[in-house]
């Protein structure tokens, strides 16, 4: 009994003790007061919040040793040991700023990001697919962004004086080989992947992270959707084909399977074409995407895409009569990848994956059968450790396997090569404060075939001003093995090298975005040669070159109601000694002046989004053999006005109509010349034109799900 009394007594005594009063003012490092700080005694209900002027009063009846905690948004928590013994105590803590992922400065040099989640972005994913001139191709939208050139007879991505092979494309961090469909020369191509797959993209026109290698000028990193929101079926009927996609969503996993079929024959029968088609382009594709949550924060993804298609086209030969030569092309392509990400203990996180691309082209050209096969395997594992909110380190390993085979089968000639590359990289981010960040990275690689080891250091920093604008600087060395068509002709060729220097200003505020960038890039070890594919001669690696210039981008979603527009201007001064050229010339794929405008306007009454885009440049260089010199002539400037109309009569139904080159301008991308002069001593020429005066696209997209408001706006 005695014990119980003692215990009860102890409690009574405890309760009747005098109060302790804790007072003070909370300030930040600059001496400004902080309101709304949560101040409490750990392990008790006793607590309070600081007032608007930073002052606080906390009364407590506790006694003994306690920990007083100060917590506030945007600051590091502070804990102070105190002894409560009645009376008054004064504390005036100074809270240190915490590095806030959401508001801290980000390095934007060279980078243009499209994301719904992040802050320093140029576009949202939805903007990409609604650019009128893009016709649903991701790359078409990037061609309205600074640093890119519109090369209408190719369709691929040309960045700052670099050729199309200098842009590497990654899906969920994994390399994609042959991301563009195979096509005949001067027939533009498209990316193989449906924009609907991706939740965001990171497009860099230079100075990118050490994580990305085998890319000389540019990296395009696409991230696939993590978790679709609902079960749904998407049906699309297009003027050029049809598609079906089914999504099934489980508690921890989801599956999307889709199939598309495309044939331009009926369309070409109705709309005038510039080209002489024997068989219009046709094809089908099928893909499956699986996502599985792994524990609390991890994710595993698997994706497979396979497609097959072809075309037959007569291509005129300058200086000859008749339809010219018949190109018969068939393509089979498969891409498969698996990737994972997981968060570990103690601020470790991991990601990686493996991908495989297999591209087979079968040509018949002048009755010669040709078969080319390109296989790329890429494996990668990365570990990221946050040592504090200021310092983090990323380290990774990568290996590439390249196998390329090319053959003139009817001639019994087949060549191939195999290369294995190992890479390691490490990169450190150091935040001095929310306003200043440094990044240093190092990338090393070795190629067995080229017997070459290389080291590419990279560095960048960014500073954020009081007005939220930020200035970034990036510099680094970049390398890439030459294209497989040249490597096969001379397997010992080494990396082509480039140095990048970039200065960038970026400000996004209240629905308006300004971005300005100046750059300098120089090239070393560019390949020069004589002859053409399958018959390259005298391959040398003594070419050099440079590209310099600036670009500006302005986007405004605020000034005009229901209207979003952006304006881009890029100036590129590029010269290089490459391919068959024996001196520095301005490449045909690097127009000096490039500009574009994209406008989208929503009209509620019409339930419609109206869009327009206009692109212009100052023309493409070419060599006219009738005159002396190389790249001695230039075409008229390219101009294109595209319009689109998306009509949403019901939430789950979209009707999309788009037309490119509404004004019907006859854009010329260069000229082909006869190999020999005619009797009058002149080389005869044929212009390289667009496939058709216009491309007209009509699509009906229907979404079926329990949620009647779902639609596949992303398809546009």
């Amino acid at each position, binding site marked *: 009994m005695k014990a119980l009394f003692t215990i009860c007594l102890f409690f009574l005594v405890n309760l009747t003790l005098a109060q302790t009063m804790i007072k003070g003012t909370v300030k930040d490092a600059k001496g400004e007061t902080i309101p709304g700080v949560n101040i409490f005694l*750990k*392990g008790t209900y006793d607590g309070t*919040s600081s007032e608007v002027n930073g002052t606080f009063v906390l009364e407590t009846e506790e006694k003994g040793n306690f920990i007083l905690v100060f917590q506030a948004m945007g600051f590091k928590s502070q804990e102070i040991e105190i002894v409560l013994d009645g009376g008054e105590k004064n504390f005036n803590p100074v809270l240190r700023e915490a590095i806030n992922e959401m508001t801290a400065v980000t390095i934007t040099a060279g980078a243009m990001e499209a994301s719904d989640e992040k802050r320093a972005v140029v576009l949202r994913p939805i903007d990409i697919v609604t650019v009128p001139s893009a016709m649903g191709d991701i790359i078409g939208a990037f061609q309205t962004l600074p640093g890119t050139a519109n090369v209408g007879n190719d369709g691929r991505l040309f960045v700052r004086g670099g050729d199309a092979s200098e842009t590497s494309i990654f899906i969920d961090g994994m390399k994609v080989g042959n991301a563009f469909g195979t096509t005949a020369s001067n027939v533009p191509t498209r990316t193989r992947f449906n924009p609907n797959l991706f939740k965001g993209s990171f497009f860099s026109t230079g100075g990118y992270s050490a994580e990305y290698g085998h890319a000389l000028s540019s990296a395009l990193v696409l991230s696939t959707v993590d978790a679709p929101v609902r079960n749904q079926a998407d049906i699309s009927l297009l003027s050029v084909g049809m598609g079906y996609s089914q999504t099934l969503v489980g508690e921890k996993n989801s599956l999307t399977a889709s199939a598309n079929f495309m044939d331009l024959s009926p369309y070409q029968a109705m709309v005038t074409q510039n080209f002489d088609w024997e068989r219009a382009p046709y094809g089908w594709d099928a893909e499956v995407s699986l996502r599985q949550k792994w524990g609390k924060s991890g994710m595993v993804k698997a994706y497979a895409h396979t497609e097959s298609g072809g075309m037959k086209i007569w291509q005129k030969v300058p200086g000859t009569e008749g339809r010219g030569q018949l190109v018969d092309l068939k393509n089979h392509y498969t891409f498969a990848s698996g990737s994972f990400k997981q968060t570990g203990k103690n601020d470790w996180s991991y990601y990686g994956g493996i991908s495989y691309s297999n591209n087979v082209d079968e040509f018949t050209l002048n009755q010669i059968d040709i078969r080319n096969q390109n296989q790329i395997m890429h494996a990668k594992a990365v570990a990221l450790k946050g040592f504090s909110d200021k310092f983090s380190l990323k380290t990774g390993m990568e290996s590439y396997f390249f196998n390329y085979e090319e053959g003139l089968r009817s001639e019994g000639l087949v060549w191939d090569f195999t290369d294995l590359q190992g890479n390691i990289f490490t990169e450190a981010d150091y935040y001095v404060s929310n306003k200043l960040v440094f990044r240093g990275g190092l990338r090393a690689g070795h190629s067995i075939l080229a017997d070459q080891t290389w080291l590419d250091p990279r560095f960048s920093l960014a500073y954020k001003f009081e007005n939220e604008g930020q200035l970034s600087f990036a510099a680094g060395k970049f390398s890439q093995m030459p294209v497989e068509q040249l490597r096969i002709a001379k397997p010992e060729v080494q990396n082509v090298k480039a140095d990048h220097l970039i200065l960038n200003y970026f400000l996004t505020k209240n629905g308006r975005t300004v971005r300005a960038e100046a750059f300098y890039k120089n090239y070393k070890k560019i390949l020069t040669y004589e002859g053409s594919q399958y018959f390259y001669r005298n391959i040398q690696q003594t070419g050099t070159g440079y590209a310099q210039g600036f670009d500006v981008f302005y986007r405004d979603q605020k000034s005009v109601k229901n209207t979003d527009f952006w304006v881009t201007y890029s100036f590129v001064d590029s010269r290089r000694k490459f391919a068959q050229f024996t001196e520095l010339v301005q490449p045909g794929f690097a127009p000096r002046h490039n500009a574009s405008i994209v406008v989208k306007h929503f009209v509620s009454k019409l339930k419609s989004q109206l869009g327009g885009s206009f692109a212009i440049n100052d023309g493409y260089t070419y060599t006219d053999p009738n005159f002396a010199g190389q790249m001695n002539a230039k075409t008229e400037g390219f101009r294109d006005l595209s319009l689109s109309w998306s009509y949403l009569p019901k939430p789950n139904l979209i009707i999309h109509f788009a037309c490119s080159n509404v004004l019907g301008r006859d854009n010329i991308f260069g000229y082909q010349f006869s190999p020999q002069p005619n009797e009058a001593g002149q080389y005869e020429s044929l212009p390289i034109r667009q496939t058709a005066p216009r491309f007209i696209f009509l699509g009906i997209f229907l979404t079926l799900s329990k949620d009647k408001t779902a639609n596949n706006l992303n398809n546009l």
Partner: protein
Amino acid sequence: MKKNILILSLTLLAAVFANANNDAYEKAMLKEIKTMGQAGPVEEMQKSANAFARIADMNEGQWLPDYYAALAYANMGFRSQGSLEEKDGYYSQAKKHIEKANAISPNNSEIVAVQGYITMGELAADSNSRGQSLSGVAMQTFGKAIELNRQNPRAIILMAQMEYGMAQFFGQGPEKACGLVDASLGLFAKEAAEAKEGNLNPTWGKRLAEEMKERSCK
């Protein structure tokens, strides 16, 4: 015997202690729920959020303190006149708390409704660029909350607001949204009639429904 008494008294004491702790929890919660109901501007809401965060720290197995802390931060986001960054800061705090609540009590209609409410706030903060990506997510979340408990008036009134916005966007009539408003008003009345003294469960949202009825569903 002595030993038995000691054990008995210690057990009793433990029960008293636990009870005292529980009483303290309920007392603190009741007080803060009342304060929050009267809180107006962001600064007052911050105090409520802080108070619930403190109670949450003390009661790790309870979902309600984190739920209310999340709700307070979400309300701060809606009421803030500040920059987008500031609003996003509140929403990110709200998400932190609601995720904690969700881990303690999974598949809870009230928690899912607040998850949707936070998404709705993020959407409203920058509807131009977030509308397309977030409106589907918000509707989906409210749908899930209703599925988990068809009697949850908060899930229904929040869904009604989304439905109304969608109908306006597509130029349709407000009938569907207003039907939901009426349904929620009925459920709010039922909830008020059944509420017991010392109830800690969520009861907010009636004013939203009444305002919407007045404004859009006359």
